[in-house]
């Protein structure tokens, strides 16, 4: 019987099988940020176990509240910083070099096909875009990962998500994943890996694939995953060039991870996106999704561009294309947080930051801050934010606030109009 990519990765990392349905895996990359790691560190210290299994396999960033906004967040950052230095962890990213973890770590080439990855962050599923098994975990799992380099999982079921057709103009990976979550619901993929396949996924660049996998957890999934291919190899080439004779050799090697044609799936869902419209959430759950036409005119107070879902350079390029030559509505506060210093630099060099600034956006440093209502753009009671992030929970961006999730294109058009609107007319006008 054939195997899925996830089953192959599990087989290659199997450390222990405490029960038939439970496995303990060796972990290739343990990623840490300042919100969920400090309590793991202080607990390890209290237990007399202040050790790390391998400093080279631990990647550390301060990203959620940075630069620190108050004494408490400064203390969290300090605990993480001191720990990283004490254990000589080479890949530690502090102010000036830090960015949103799920954008920064792929950019550094830390994630490779066939890897196992954990982090104390639910959007760790993003890294499945590289053909890895990457799961968000709690602080205790993280703590054991830091100490022992292992993590326990139930044997995963896989849901095959086939994306057919051709993406229309003005419709992006974000719209696709919102449509997928709408159909599956917020618990439709619990305890499953969502395997994204089909011509639309194959045609996507790595950044779009990361957007797709990033929101797998919003359908309850353990991880999203894409088959590693030429697109993956080209993205990773600066980091893997010494391992392979040429890109073709890397592509051929990645093939060993691909799901077999006779692999067993818990289910298959098929989407044809050729007629898909831009998607927008309307409620307090990420499966409460409508076509943008049904949300046309809905008021917004703030437009936020950034996050591990849509804060990468391709996202900023799309938004800038729409914003160029426009001012955003007087009633709207626009906030752009490029996801990493590299994205920030590229946006600067390409003139994208100027477009955002000319349009009336505030450009902040790379951080997760506003997405979870911690800093740099928190909403007041009753305020509404059009956001390129991944969660619209009640109060997510500030107590009593509301969030509408959408693509960067829809967010840019919404910022100009001052209310939710379809980005496609703006793109068509550019062509005319």
């Amino acid at each position, binding site marked *: 019987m054939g195997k899925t990519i996830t089953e192959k990765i599990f087989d290659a990392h199997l450390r222990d099988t405490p029960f038939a349905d439970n496995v*303990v895996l060796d972990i290739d990359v343990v990623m840490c940020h300042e*919100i969920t790691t400090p309590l793991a560190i202080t607990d390890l210290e209290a237990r007399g176990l202040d050790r790390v299994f391998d400093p080279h396999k631990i990647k550390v960033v301060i990203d959620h509240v940075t630069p620190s906004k108050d004494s408490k967040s400064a203390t969290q950052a300090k605990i993480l910083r001191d720990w990283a230095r004490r254990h000589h962890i080479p890949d530690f990213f502090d102010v000036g070099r830090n960015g949103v973890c799920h954008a920064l770590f792929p950019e550094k080439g830390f994630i490779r096909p066939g890897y196992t990855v954990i982090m*104390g962050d639910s959007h760790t599923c993003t890294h499945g875009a590289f053909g890895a098994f990457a799961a968000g975990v709690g602080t205790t799992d993280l703590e054991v990962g830091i100490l022992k380099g292992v993590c*326990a999982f139930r044997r995963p079921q896989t849901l095959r998500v086939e994306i057919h057709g051709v993406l229309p103009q003005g419709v992006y990976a974000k719209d696709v994943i919102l449509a997928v979550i709408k159909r599956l619901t917020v618990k439709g993929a619990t305890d499953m890996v969502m395997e994204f396949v089909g011509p639309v996924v194959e045609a996507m660049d790595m950044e779009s694939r990361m957007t797709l996998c990033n929101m797998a957890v919003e359908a309850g999934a353990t991880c999203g995953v894409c088959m590693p291919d030429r697109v993956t190899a080209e993205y990773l080439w600066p980091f893997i060039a010494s391992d392979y004779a040429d890109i073709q050799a890397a592509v051929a090697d990645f093939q060993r991870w691909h799901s077999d044609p006779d692999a067993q799936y818990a289910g298959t869902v098929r989407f044809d996106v050729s007629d898909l419209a831009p998607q927008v959430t309307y409620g307090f759950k990420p499966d409460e999704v409508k076509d943008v036409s049904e949300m046309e005119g809905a008021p917004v107070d703030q437009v936020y561009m950034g996050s591990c879902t849509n804060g990468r350079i391709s996202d900023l390029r799309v938004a800038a294309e729409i914003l160029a030559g426009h001012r955003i509505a007087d009633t709207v506060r626009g906030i752009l947080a490029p996801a990493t210093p590299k994205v920030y630099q590229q946006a600067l060099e390409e003139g994208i930051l100027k477009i955002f600034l000319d349009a009336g956006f505030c450009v902040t440093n790379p951080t997760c801050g506003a997405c979870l209502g911690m800093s740099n753009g928190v909403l007041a009671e009753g305020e509404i934010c059009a956001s390129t992030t991944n969660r619209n929970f009640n109060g997510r961006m500030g107590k009593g606030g509301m969030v509408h999730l959408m693509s960067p294109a829809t967010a840019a058009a919404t910022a100009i109009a001052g209310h939710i609107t379809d980005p496609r007319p703006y793109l068509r006008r550019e062509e005319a």
Partner: protein
Amino acid sequence: MKNFGGKALLLDRNDINTDEIIPAKYLTEITKMGLQPHLLEDLKLGGFDPASVCRQGYRAIVTRANFGCGSSREHAVWVLEVNDITMVVAESFARIFRQNMFNNGLLAVELPAADIDAIFALGPDVEIQADLAGNRLTATAAGGEQRSFAFRLNEFDRELVLAGGWLAYADQRY
């Protein structure tokens, strides 16, 4: 063995997420006790008053489907623990939250929707008690009416509860 049971808080809604259980603005706390006053502070549920749940003697939560969805923050489990709530009974859980419960040696019990309905029907002043060895959950209404339900724990999760959590288990074994 730890006793799992006592006065139950009934939360009649699906998809209660981790931001509702403990809002992100409290994630800068570096002690578990710092979370204690903020249990369920942002829960969106008609008539619910967060002030009515902290330190009111609740030992368990009974709720609907997909409890604990959203963030991986273990703070959502710790805020229960520091309020002496050591068991959640639900139709289903989000994976990370469920694992965080067992990793702390706490109990996450899944029951079919009909059984959850039956517990709600006994409320609001219901007490529940888990018998880990017998795999049964008993719910007792204020008037004394009692219902009993069979549950199944994943064998590994049971080991974690018995070991007092994943760190203790893993440190001995790996």
